[in-house]
């Protein structure tokens, strides 16, 4: 059974994952039995009573019901679904009632990345860092359309609504790095709206919290920029190889450095540091012709040094850069 669990499911990392998988296997085995009864019964009857070559067409039995069997068909499923229902609700209540000592992390969904705000004041993008064996309360909201926050290993999922909070919680029992998916369709970048949850031992988490935001201070600007490019989810919409996704490729911008770029309202501007900076902070003002202005503002998400780092990184890009 353990091997079957491993084959069918992702790892069981949250405290309720085991219970939910057991519920699955309860329904699974009950279903297999019912399914075999139907299929074997059907094949047996169809073959036993088949119309063979040379058989005479004749009147058949007038048997058309059996009260005992009908009651049986009614009662057995009724018992099974009652167990399933009670089990499902009991586990669900466990998943919805948040322990009092939970750490509260605020998750914001935005097309197409996740922002995580920690109680101590730090914030990360597309990377949720949590301590192991501690209940984590996740308070979700969205700034634009519906998203859904799904961590398969935790068996936890909740829709992320604009202008309304939703709540979920989990406690991880193993350190490691696991996937987060968006499961409510949210537009072009829906399938790229992935993130990671990094479960750390308690001690490491405390160190991480203390260092968060300052760890990168001594990196050279270009390297920091390269790091931010994926960390701040620029890569969801801007490629480095020249192909256009939701937004123009960084490579193209880099190659056009110093040249004029045309916007969708017919105006144009020279690509320079100021242009890139304002495009990151106020992306809705100048929208490159041929693109939809869907980028959110990064005001408050990047400090000056980080902006400089991204610009420096962008300027280093060449046709053959491999990142």
């Amino acid at each position, binding site marked *: 059974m353990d091997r079957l669990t491993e084959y069918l499911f992702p790892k069981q990392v949250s405290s309720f994952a085991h219970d939910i998988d057991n519920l699955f296997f309860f329904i699974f085995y009950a279903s297999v039995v*019912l399914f075999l009864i*139907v299929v074997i019964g*059907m094949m047996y009857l169809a073959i036993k009573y088949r119309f063979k070559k040379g058989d005479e067409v004749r009147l058949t039995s007038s048997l058309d019901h059996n009260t005992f*069997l009908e009651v049986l068909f009614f009662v057995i499923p009724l018992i099974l*679904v009652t167990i399933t229902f009670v089990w499902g609700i009991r586990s669900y209540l466990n998943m919805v009632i948040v322990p009092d000592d939970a750490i509260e992390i605020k998750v914001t969904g935005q097309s197409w990345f996740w922002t995580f705000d920690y109680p101590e004041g730090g914030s990360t993008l597309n990377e949720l860092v949590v301590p192991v064996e501690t209940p984590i309360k996740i308070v979700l909201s969205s700034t634009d359309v519906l998203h859904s926050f799904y961590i398969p290993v935790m068996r936890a999922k909740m829709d992320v609504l604009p202008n309304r909070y939703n709540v979920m919680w989990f406690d991880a029992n193993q350190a490691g790095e696991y996937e987060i998916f968006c499961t409510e369709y949210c537009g072009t970048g829906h399938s790229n709206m992935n993130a990671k949850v990094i479960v750390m031992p308690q001690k490491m988490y405390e160190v991480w919290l203390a260092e968060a935001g300052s760890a990168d201070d001594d990196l050279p600007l270009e390297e920091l920029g390269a790091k931010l490019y994926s960390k701040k989810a620029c890569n969801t919409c801007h490629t480095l190889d020249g192909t256009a996704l939701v937004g123009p490729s960084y490579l193209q911008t880099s190659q056009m450095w110093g040249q004029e770029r045309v916007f969708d309202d017919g105006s144009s501007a020279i690509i320079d540091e100021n242009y890139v900076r304002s495009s990151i902070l106020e992306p809705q003002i100048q929208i490159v012709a041929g693109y939809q202005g869907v980028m959110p503002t990064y005001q408050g998400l990047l400090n000056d040094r980080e902006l400089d780092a991204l610009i420096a990184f962008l300027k280093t890009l060449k046709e053959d850069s491999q990142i």
Partner: protein
Amino acid sequence: MGDTNQNYLTHPKGIMSWLLTLDHKRIGLMYLFGGLFFFFVGGLLALGMRAELAAPGNDFVSNDTYNSMYTLHGAIMIFLFIIPAIPGALGNILLPLMLGAKDVAFPRLNLFSFYLYSIGAIFFIYVLLSGGVDTGWTFYTPYSTTSNTNVMSTTMGIFIIGFSSILTGLNFIATVHKMRTPGLTWYKLPLFVWALYGTSLVQITATPVIAITMVLLMLERLLGIGIFDPAMGGDPVLFQHFFWFYSHPAVYIMILPAFGIISEIIPVHSRKKVWGYKFIAYSTLSIAFIGFLVWGHHMFTSGQSVLSQIVFSFITYFVGIPTGVKIFSWMLTMYKGQVSFTPPMLYALSFLFLFTIGGLTGIFLGAVALDIHLHDTYFVVAHFHYVMQGGTIVAFLGGLHHWWPKSFGTMYNQTIANIAAIGVFIAFNGTFFPQFLLGLRGMPRRYATYDPQFVEVHSYSTFWSGILGISIFIGVMNLLWSLRKSNKLDPGTNPWGALTMEWTHTSSPPHPHNFEEEPVLTHGPYDYDKVIVKPTFKK
């Protein structure tokens, strides 16, 4: 018998006699070919999606194209094929024949609803050609109020098709109540009629709500009325209530007629009285009713109240029980019968197999705690394809094969039909069974690109989807090929030895006014213990 050459296909002649026909059989045929056309279009979109999913990256189409493809695949299959196909096509052709009536209650209304369907279809074709729509067939706000694709035309199309569906339902209800031939009491009705009756009840009660929901969605886009759009003070979860109040019962609009077809095919091809007639009849009505109480199980992760979660989970299980008993009844119908492995029967048997899986996997999704893991993953995709394609479409193909000689007076090649039926069965399982595994492992639906860990299962599924497409294509082409002129059967043909009125009381294809003489009821629809009608094939 009068002039045996006179049948509804050839009399009267001329294109106008088809476009302005009030004959339910001709209207049914027009629905049939309209439905098959959109089945083809929706199928191509599905194959395109599977091609994109064969490998993890954007190898075949872009994200936007993929999103448009899956939206249109869903919307076309549901609104233009599955919902109208069985009631509109088979229902229209057969209902008055099974009741011994000369036509449906309101023939003009019937033609009108076909034209509404056509107008809605034109909207969809426009959307298809003008760049698509990318909201998913569910149109969840606020994405649907902000998307700059063709949401307005699509919702307008659905609004219009909704009225077509309402009018068909209304027509059938009046027909079943008032147009039965004297002596045909409720318990002598063929089960297909019961199924259509239950379907029609759902159609007239649920469809108005989708109509008004679509109107509100359009107004939300035009005026920002603030009922569904959170930016205007509205509530997106309320939209989901509105949407699923229709769309869950709509699942029963799709599946109940399939139950009806299976309840016809199995007794006829087993030459055996149907098991548990009253139970099947009543369970149809009770499923239709309970279906209205469970819509919230589509919203287990939406953030609705905990009370709603519990209520919806509880009631959901009560749909399962009558459905389960139906499956046992069909199975036991074969007991002590004479089972022939004809194409319709093969489809019916594969329906039993596939629908049982579809139904049982629904139990997993009804348990709230488990649904939270499985919601919006490929488990759900596989589940509803087992119900909709493995259930409804397989039953539809079975019904088409069963009544083809009745509708057209021709017989298809049964060997090819059997091969196609088996092909559909195997390839269907090959395509969709692996998707349960994908879902359990956490692969979300509506993804154009995905994590490479899922690639093996996805490419397996894609491979079989190609075979599935080919099998269905062969099955349908085999039917159409039989329409060539040299293939005419004798009008008195009853190839299955069936006892329902459409086989015993009129010719194949039927007379323009259905019956040459007023039909007199001599036996019940499943009296294989009292009456022998030998299967006859005459060219």
